[in-house]
């Protein structure tokens, strides 16, 4: 189905925001301003954006350690999210979560998760609102090819299938589980096929192509809202950088990295498609680029200049206030 111009601009904005944000984070990490590890989402922008553009604020997502892209695609507050990555008091999680544990419940972002695969059952739990309360909602779990081998993911798929819950299992197959190639770590090599084994329809598609992801997402979301249960979407994409920033990537060649950036750039592919089809003027997209760069730069400056949490906050929010 042809998307409206507004939706196309929305799609581009989501993807480009992720790109600009992550490139800025990469620079900041190199400068040593970012605490702890960060795992960049560059190369996979079309996946988070293609899924989240089909979701409402009431719909939920459960994310991963590589969660900046999911957070942005779900329209989390850019400034407070940036503050969280810099572990500041006014961050979304008041500085106690950091990059690998960002959540923004106000937009249904149930949290990045530093335990690989653990988010899948959590997404299933959020989907129980349809069964228990009759709410109209969809819940998506983002799952890497590495996480696809976790028992928690299998259990989550089976439970969602048995209970016919409105869940999207979005497999982001970027070719590597940390350092280990998918050709080594994935028995049978067919992640979507495993999901079919649990009785749910599945898609295999090019995760560098926003339109492929969005079309599958639209169908799966509709099915879920109808009460017809979960779907799996396996998106093949490329991870442009290391598992984490600072990863020397001894496990792949320079040639591979060059080819990835040349052939698998979701932004380039999107621009080419919409411009060639005359759906959007290139000037519109350039204006978005400019605006996003200034938004992200401002957010980072603001975050770096905002206060760290008070040490008195160390032991707060372990339990509900006054209950322990």
């Amino acid at each position, binding site marked *: 189905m042809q998307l409206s111009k507004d939706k196309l601009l929305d799609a581009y904005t989501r993807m480009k925001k992720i790109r600009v944000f992550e490139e800025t984070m990469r620079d900041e990490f190199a400068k040593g301003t970012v605490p702890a590890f960060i795992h960049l989402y560059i190369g996979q922008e079309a996946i988070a954006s293609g899924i989240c553009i089909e979701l409402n604020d009431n719909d939920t997502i459960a994310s991963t350690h590589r969660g900046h892209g999911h957070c942005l695609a779900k329209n989390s507050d850019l400034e407070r999210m940036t503050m969280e990555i810099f572990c500041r008091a006014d961050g979304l999680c008041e500085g106690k*979560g950091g990059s690998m544990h960002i959540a923004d419940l106000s937009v249904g972002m149930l949290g990045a998760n530093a335990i690989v695969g653990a988010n899948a059952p959590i997404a299933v739990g959020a989907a129980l*609102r349809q*069964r*228990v309360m009759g709410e109209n909602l969809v819940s998506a779990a983002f799952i890497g090819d590495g996480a696809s081998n976790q028992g*928690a993911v299998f259990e989550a798929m089976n439970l969602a299938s048995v209970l016919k819950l409105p869940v999207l299992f979005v497999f982001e197959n970027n070719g590597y589980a940390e350092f280990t190639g998918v050709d080594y770590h994935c028995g049978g090599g067919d992640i979507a096929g495993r999901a079919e084994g649990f009785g749910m329809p599945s898609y295999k598609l090019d995760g560098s192509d926003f339109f492929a992801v969005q079309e599958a997402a639209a169908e799966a979301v509709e099915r879920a809202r109808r009460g017809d249960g979960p779907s799996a979407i396996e998106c093949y994409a490329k991870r442009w950088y290391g598992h984490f920033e600072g990863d020397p990537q001894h496990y792949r060649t320079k040639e591979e990295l060059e080819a990835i950036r040349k052939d698998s750039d979701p932004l380039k592919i999107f621009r080419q498609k919409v411009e060639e089809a005359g759906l959007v003027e290139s000037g519109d997209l350039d204006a978005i680029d400019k605006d996003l760069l200034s938004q992200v730069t401002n957010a980072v400056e603001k975050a770096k200049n905002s206060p760290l949490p008070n040490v008195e906050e160390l032991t707060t929010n372990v339990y509900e206030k006054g209950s322990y």
Partner: protein
Amino acid sequence: MTIKTYREAIIEAMILEMKRDEKVFVIGEDISGGRGCDDFDGEAAGGPMGLTQGLWDEFGAQRVIDTPISETAIMGAAAGAALSGLRPIAELMFSDFFGVCFDQIYNQAAKFRFMYGDQGATPLVIRTMIGAGIGCGPQHSQSPYSIFANIPGLKVVTPSNPYDAKGLLISSIRDNDPVIFCEHKALLGMDGEVPDESYEVPLGKGKILKEGNDISIVAIGQMVGVVQNCIKNLEKKGISAEIIDPRSLSPFDDEMVYDSVEKTGRLLVLDESNPVCSFGSWITSMVSEEVFSSLKAPTKVLTPPHCPVPAAPNLEAAYLPDVETIISASENLKNYT
């Protein structure tokens, strides 16, 4: 006042809370008798121990949700449901099974409030059976509450009688943090007075079951009943024991224990967990730090030995602290010079 069993008290608490709040639901294995499907018209069995009997008939499959044998999925789904506004009661049939799903409990549910900056609550109750005494052997008889109590973010409750079981479960369901509700399998048939109406027993408040002057005995779960059987014998030996049931371990009513030890000068803890890093050892450690100068004798913890729970009835009987051991430990404390 009506006489009810510990099991009936638990079921009644769930029914009352499910009627009060439509967000409360129950999820677990075989909880409607293994027939979660909507078209089932028989009487639902309510789990292998009958702890969810009647729930499916009253509330149906929308809110009494049978699952596959998938503890990770059950605990994770319950955690996710709680984070997104529901109030799940998740059944972990035997507490021994925490080993296959602990990530969802201690890395996820327990940490949501802290690591997400208090954005949302996690009102989750995990009901689970603990304890030795009915011959279930090494993998169905443990009491891992010390491990649960070690985790910041979890609350841990150990009711010892039907009245507390109902009131503590109602409080746990209304609580906005994850609560591990430890039901002792040897107590399920225990009778006691349980009011029909709804009432709360607050978390973190212990109960003095008997006042005394010579020795403070803190007993957890099943051990409460065992120590109550010792009272007459202790009195015959001239020992006036103050018996404390902490009822919840996390939060723990430390002030009640300190006040008691300041009066008696002696402390004995009866704890069914493994001895190394047991909850009992934590109690004695806190007492030594806070009211050391009141102590007239070293503190003492009685636990099972550091071994798994055996299946053979004679070995299992030898595994648990018994009346003789408790009396002899109490005498040693009383006579310590």
